């Protein structure tokens, strides 16, 4: 694979190019800001790759088309932004219940309701707690740069098929709209279809297969939930995070996605002033990288979680470190645009234990 040529693209385009590199061959979408560059790019490039692009009649339809393609073992994706992702939740629940691989991209915008078209992280709960009805989890990847948007979208397809589970790539309006150089690469040994032993591809000459989320026979649903639980437990091995300057830090700032990189600027500046601060940036939100965080807590560090919402990931931070420590919290309200300057004062306050 060649890693030399850099191209200058929006995060939305990085996601789209990553999907095509991962041999995504079906895209179903419906327009909504700030992710419109994804369907725009896919509408011209997907047919060239020999795949199908459909602008559906609604987000609900797009999500159910995704379910159908996934059931056939096709690498398929949909993308939207917060209000649109809410509409997709029913199908996502069905996909989780019937173990259908799929990739869903959410470029998080301000909420609740229609909110605005600017960045926010208000969909953390929706993304990591299931979002639809029933007891299920998505794998949730949280890129903070254009390159990560590309890389994680490729990873998302691998994970979706590895675990037979919907995977969400959770960005925000900053990631989607920002342009940055990325180095595209093509993963090796990917087939555009997977799931030879379960996909619905015509029963001619083999036993018939059934993919469903309805389990009425006695014990069947409990068995299915037990199976899903075992799968979610197994996912924990791929939890991942970036640790920046945490080694000798007294205070560790926890932040993900775009806010993670903005907080990093604040951490760097304070480091130059001699303040012992570091950054913990989860790259997977589910599974949440509990182990490295607990390790930091056991080393006696204090924590400050900053998010572009009223406090959601902070719950997971607290759960991870609950036996030894707690975390302060600082919100940027959705509707406001965060800069590194906004984080300096709360970081200093937490560092001094105020």
């Amino acid at each position: 694979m060649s890693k030399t040529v850099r191209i200058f693209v929006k995060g939305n385009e990085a996601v789209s190019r990553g999907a095509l590199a991962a041999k995504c061959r079906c895209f179903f979408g419906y327009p909504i800001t700030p992710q419109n560059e994804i369907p725009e790019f896919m509408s011209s490039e997907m047919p060239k790759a020999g795949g199908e692009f459909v602008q559906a009649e609604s987000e609900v339809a797009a999500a159910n088309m995704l379910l159908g393609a996934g059931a056939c073992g096709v690498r398929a994706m949909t993308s939207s932004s917060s209000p649109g992702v809410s509409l997709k939740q029913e199908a996502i629940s069905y996909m989780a219940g019937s173990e259908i691989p799929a990739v869903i991209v959410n470029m998080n915008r301000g909420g609740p309701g229609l909110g605005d078209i600017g960045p926010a992280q208000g969909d953390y709960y929706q993304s990591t707690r299931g979002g639809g009805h029933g007891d299920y989890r998505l794998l949730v990847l949280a890129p903070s740069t254009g390159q990560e948007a590309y890389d994680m979208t490729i990873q998302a397809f691998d994970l979706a098929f590895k675990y037979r589970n919907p995977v969400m790539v959770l960005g925000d309006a900053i990631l989607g709209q920002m342009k940055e150089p990325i180095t595209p690469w093509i993963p090796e040994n990917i087939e555009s279809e997977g799931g030879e032993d379960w996909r619905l591809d015509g029963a001619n000459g083999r036993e018939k297969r059934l993919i469903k989320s309805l389990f009425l026979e006695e014990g069947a649903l409990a068995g299915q939930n037990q199976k899903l639980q075992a799968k979610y437990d197994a996912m924990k091995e791929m939890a991942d995070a970036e640790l920046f300057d945490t080694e000798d830090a007294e205070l560790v700032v926890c932040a993900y996605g775009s806010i993670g990189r903005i907080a990093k600027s604040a951490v760097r500046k304070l480091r130059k002033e001699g303040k012992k601060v570091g950054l913990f940036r989860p790259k997977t939100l589910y599974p949440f990288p509990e182990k490295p965080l607990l390790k930091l807590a056991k080393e006696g560090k204090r924590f400050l979680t900053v998010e572009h919402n009223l406090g959601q990931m902070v719950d997971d931070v607290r759960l991870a470190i609950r036996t030894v420590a707690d975390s302060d919290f600082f919100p940027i309200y959705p509707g406001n645009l965060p800069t590194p300057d906004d984080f300096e004062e709360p970081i200093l306050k937490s560092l001094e234990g105020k």
Partner: protein
Amino acid sequence: MSRYLDSIIAGFGGQGVMLIGNLLAYAGMQEGLNVTYIPVYGPEMRGGTANCTVVLAEEEIGSPIIRRPTSLIIMNRPSLDKFQTRLQDGGINIINSSLVDMELADTKRVNCYAVPANEIADKLGNTRMANMVALGAFIEATKIMPLDAVVNSLDNVISAHYSHLIPKNAEALQAGADHIK
């Protein structure tokens, strides 16, 4: 200190501030720098300005959004009102003096450069290239990269439909740089 520059570029919608932001960032990438470009949303949209933020750095870039930039390109009066006070002490302020009264420039605290971008572009035969004049002046004032790097990037940010205008845009960049030499 490694090379680092961040800039807010602001003006009326239609003055081409997004285009020169793109051009600056693209040229920075071609120069081997890390770069980010973001059109700014939210409350920024109100008040008569369109603006974008560009960061150019040798180090990895953290935030693509900057509250107090080290440089500005100001294409109109509302942009000056909005952003001049945010510019860091000693920062570089490229002001389109064709549309902004230079008496409003804070010459004590920051380095202001008056560039009559519209007049210079008019002389070249196209008012719409005032943005390129301003960017040329910006490159000369900041010395963040050679002007050639910007000129050579024009064909990557100007759509094929307008490719016949690339030589004129290059002239406008040069005229801007020459103005403050």
